[in-house]
């Protein structure tokens, strides 16, 4: 029995190890290509470690006028930070109402909110563009950021689920002391749902960081490009310089991977909450 079990574990680990290699090798390839000289990139057999490593590719990529890294980074950070603030603040306020306040039409409104979770984004794409065009905001970050300040179904849902787990007695006591809803939300609820707020913040930040279609539609001036579009434009000009393209690619990917390792707990919690309670 014991031998049987150990054999089973061995097979499981062998399988998991093999598959995880398939997932990790492309990332390794991204890295290794970024430090190769141009003639060691597309070779058969493949070269797994370049002789010598060309770290200066990073200098070449990140100082290239075609990939103004720090300006792109500044634009991306502006987009990510402002949209994340908007998303967290607005969703927390709305979620509080759904979790803690009684009002006419609440359940209907919450039902509609859940239904919009499944609404395909494509059906609102063009009129939203036209709307911002008429407001003269196309070409700026306003169309990308403004919607975040009006909450989103997913964030409301996630925060509400968390807020429902907080005992009502805690806020009731504050009510008796004469505290208003804003004060209760700020002083009692928000500190207790901090993990959920972090989850919402992380997901929005990453979504904005990776967003491609939004900036592609709304931004036309290259001085306003975020990293994602900047990399795309860079590649269009240096199609064959794979070492520089991968260096630039890695430069915009590493911050996310670093954030993942620093905040892993929240990532896993966030992803699983969406599925299990849904």
């Amino acid at each position, binding site marked *: 029995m014991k031998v049987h079990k150990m054999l089973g574990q061995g097979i*499981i680990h062998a399988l*998991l190890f093999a598959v995880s290699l398939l997932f990790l*090798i492309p990332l390794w390839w991204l890295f290794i290509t970024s430090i190769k000289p141009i003639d060691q990139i*597309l070779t058969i057999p493949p070269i797994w470690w370049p002789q010598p490593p060309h770290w200066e590719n990073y200098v070449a990529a990140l100082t290239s006028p075609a990939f103004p890294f720090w300006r792109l980074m500044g634009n991306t950070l502006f987009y990510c930070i402002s949209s994340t603030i908007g998303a967290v603040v607005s969703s927390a306020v*709305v979620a509080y109402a759904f979790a803690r306040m009684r009002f006419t039409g609440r359940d209907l409104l919450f039902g509609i909110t859940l239904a919009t979770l499944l609404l*395909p984004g494509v059906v609102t794409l063009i009129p939203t563009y036209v709307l911002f065009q008429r407001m003269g905001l196309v070409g700026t970050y306003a169309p990308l950021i403004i919607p975040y300040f009006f909450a989103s179904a997913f964030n409301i849902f996630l925060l509400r689920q968390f807020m429902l787990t907080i005992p009502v007695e805690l806020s009731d006591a504050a009510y008796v002391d004469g505290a208003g809803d804003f004060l209760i939300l700020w002083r009692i609820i928000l500190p207790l749902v901090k993990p959920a707020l972090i989850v919402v913040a992380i997901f929005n930040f990453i979504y904005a960081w990776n967003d491609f279609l939004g900036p592609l539609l709304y931004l036309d001036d290259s001085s306003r490009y975020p990293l994602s579009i900047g990399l795309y434009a860079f590649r*269009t*000009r240096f199609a064959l310089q794979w070492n520089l393209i991968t260096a630039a690619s890695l430069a915009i990917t590493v911050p996310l991977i670093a954030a993942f390792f620093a905040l892993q707990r929240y990532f896993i919690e966030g992803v*699983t909450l969406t599925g299990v309670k849904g």
Partner: protein
Amino acid sequence: MSRKTRDNLRAYLFVSPWLISLLVFTAYPMLASFYFSMTRYTVVRPPVWIGLENFQVMFTKDDLFWVAVWNTFYYTFISVPLQMLVALILATLLNQSTRGIGLYRTAFYLPALVPAVVTALLWMLILDPRAGLANAALDAMGLPKLGWMHSVVWSKPSLIIISLWVGVGQPMLIFLAGLKNVPKSLLEAAIIDGANSWQRYWRVVIPLLTPTIFFNLLITLIASFQVFTTAFVATASASGATAAGPLNSMLVYMVHLYRQGFRYSSMGYASAMAVVLFLVLVALTLIVVRSSREWVHYEGAPPR
């Protein structure tokens, strides 16, 4: 003012951002999509009502529309089941494993974090038809090299491979959490009833997991039909060629829609395409939800 009115007013003040969002960023654009779909509209001039002409052109004259529909169906109906299957298998293996779960879990989830542009570029490199890593691997195994994104036959499978690399991590984490939620007592009861591990998996674990499968399936399906960035980046050649992949074999629905609306300024036609995709997705969602009564097991309900 009665207390109830006051409570309502205060609550509606709290939900007002979301109400505005529902009206301005959801309800209005939805209705406007339907209106624009029946107009000729180039943004610079006001929309002109043309009835169903856009739909007529789409169904009878625009050959690329049908190419895009075929490509998107091909992509979705192979990619989504594979994503679900691989995610479920990996989650099951992880759940059986005693050590190193965290490491494997990280390995499977990392690709989901990579920006879509980077993913597209990275896989263009790996799938390079001359001497990319994939062909080097085939060569080492004594197999013939493939054209990948440069071949009509292999371009869509290339997109599907990319979708697996990116798209397995998230449902895998959700499945894993679902598996951890399976009550030990039920499994122990099954052991006492003499069920072997295979029977326990199919008769106890999988039925309990069906709500999670249902949720993952719906989300992945809707996202997959709207795939854009990988196909867009992979087909935007530096040479400025207009075909999306060889013989437009990577022209997915959203790329065609984007080109119509934002490259050729046919906002009316693009809206009509959006409306068609919306209706198809609503129909599919309803089919999945309807069918779920047959196969999704909810707690408390007797198993079928």
